[in-house]
């Protein structure tokens, strides 16, 4: 674990070092020649590099939770199948038997999987999986914001500010309308 963290730190530092160096080395010619989106992008590249490097750790975590998720499903499937096999010998081999087999199969699988979905271990792992996925999404959003800023377009945060402003305005109008009606 510690080793993994050291490697991540090493790559992170290396990436930051070189992106800073390149930005410094190229700053003079670019400031002289560019004021447009490319200039913005070059100065924001550091942020993108940082997000991508940080994302590595989360990709590993996501992968671990995903493996555990499929392991839980596979283990439950195997357990249910074993249970079905142990019961099948007691079912007669005729027409009714086939119907009974179908019922037994569905009931056992249903019970085993509902038991899994109802368990703390499933919920904790599933929610950790979602949580890591959301961390990755956050980084993706941050990178997209850098690109949007470079293109002089409003970022997600800026659009949300407008949404919130609109929401508050609607609430204020609604309260005014309601107090006017009561008066």
């Amino acid at each position, binding site marked *: 674990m510690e080793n993994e963290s050291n490697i991540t730190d090493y790559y992170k530092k290396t990436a930051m070092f070189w992106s800073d160096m390149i930005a410094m080395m190229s700053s003079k010619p670019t400031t002289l020649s560019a004021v447009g989106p490319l200039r913005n992008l070059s100065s924001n590249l550091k942020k993108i590099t940082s997000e991508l490097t940080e994302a590595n750790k989360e990709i590993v975590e996501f992968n671990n939770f995903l493996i555990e998720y499929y392991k839980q499903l596979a283990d439950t499937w195997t357990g249910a199948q074993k249970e079905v096999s142990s019961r099948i010998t007691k079912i007669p081999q005729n027409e009714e038997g086939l119907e009974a087999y179908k019922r037994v199969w569905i009931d056992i699988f*249903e019970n085993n*999987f509902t038991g899994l979905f*109802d368990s703390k271990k*499933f*919920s904790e792992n599933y929610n950790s999986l979602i949580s890591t996925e959301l961390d990755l*999404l956050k980084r993706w959003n941050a990178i997209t914001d850098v690109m949007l800023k470079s293109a002089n377009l409003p970022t997600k945060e800026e659009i*949300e500010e407008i*949404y919130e402003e*609109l929401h508050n305005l609607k609430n204020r109008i609604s309260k005014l309308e309601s107090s006017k009606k009561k008066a």
Partner: protein
Amino acid sequence: MSENKFNPKIIGDFLNFSRNFTEAPMKASVPHEVKLGSTQFDVAYKEDKMRLLHFKPLTSKQVRTPLLISYAVVNRYHIFDIDPKKSWVKNLLEQGFDVYLIDWGTPSKIDKFLGFDEYVNRYLDNCVDFICDETNVDKVSIQGYCTGGTLATVYSSLHPERVKNLIATAPVIDGWKDTTVVSNIAKYFDVDKLVDTVGNMPPEFIYFCFSILKPFEQGVEKYIKFLNNIDNEKYVDSFLKIEKWLDETPPIPGELFRQWIKDIYQDNLLIQNKMYVGNKHVSLKNLNMPVFTQVAIGDHLVSPECSMPLHYAVSSTDKTLKLYPTGHVGMIASSFSQKTVLPELGKWLKERS
């Protein structure tokens, strides 16, 4: 020497199934082209994406107090009018009720900040205002289904003077007592991270929750049964309507979802009378109007243990709790609901309207 014998019945069943599988596209409609809802209505009032539907009367004389149905925030309102023979709304109209229904609409990114406060103190309250103005009454009867039952309960607690009768159909009330797999996921869910990152609760997540509810009965057996019944027109029609309804889940506004998960499932504030909506204290003791709680014993979405505590928490002396041997959807859209649930509700409501 033993001889392998194939059972002709089994071979016949297999061949039939293969034939049904091949012929299904010719015999059934394309699910997304299936039309939902048959009872006529007018859009009486509209605010943002919310619409208040007013159904056209089917009787010459109507019950004095209008009935407002607060639909859930999951899926769309069509389940109340999915099929003329199983329509909740049509049945109530035929019993002489004046029926209004709230369609919450399909929230988009701009609706992320809508929360309990807006749903209860703005949308629901404005609908009640509108109905009272239009029908010249001071109070309405409110029925809420599933999460709509929770909204109706919260509304009735904050505005008891506007509610003549409260009918809570499979309401989400006591989150800690809910034994469904949905509540198990909700308990450990990092709702802040989801809302802060994504905004609204995406429908895909709701589909995931559906998929872990009886995964083999609902995910496998149901479709085999459908193919086996492909020649039964009524069965196919009803199946496709329900499937289409299940497949049309709108996102849930972020702030509403955040408070929902935290206050109802994680901290369980509603039943403990500790919940606040728009800075106003929600106490179930304020529910002094007649209350009818309808619970389905086989409910795998909102377990009976989660809904029933409402009956015991209200201060009303006129309260009724009914348990029905059916499921979450069966309680409102089935021949059972037509024969049992709706006549009982109609009788109860007429006596108090």
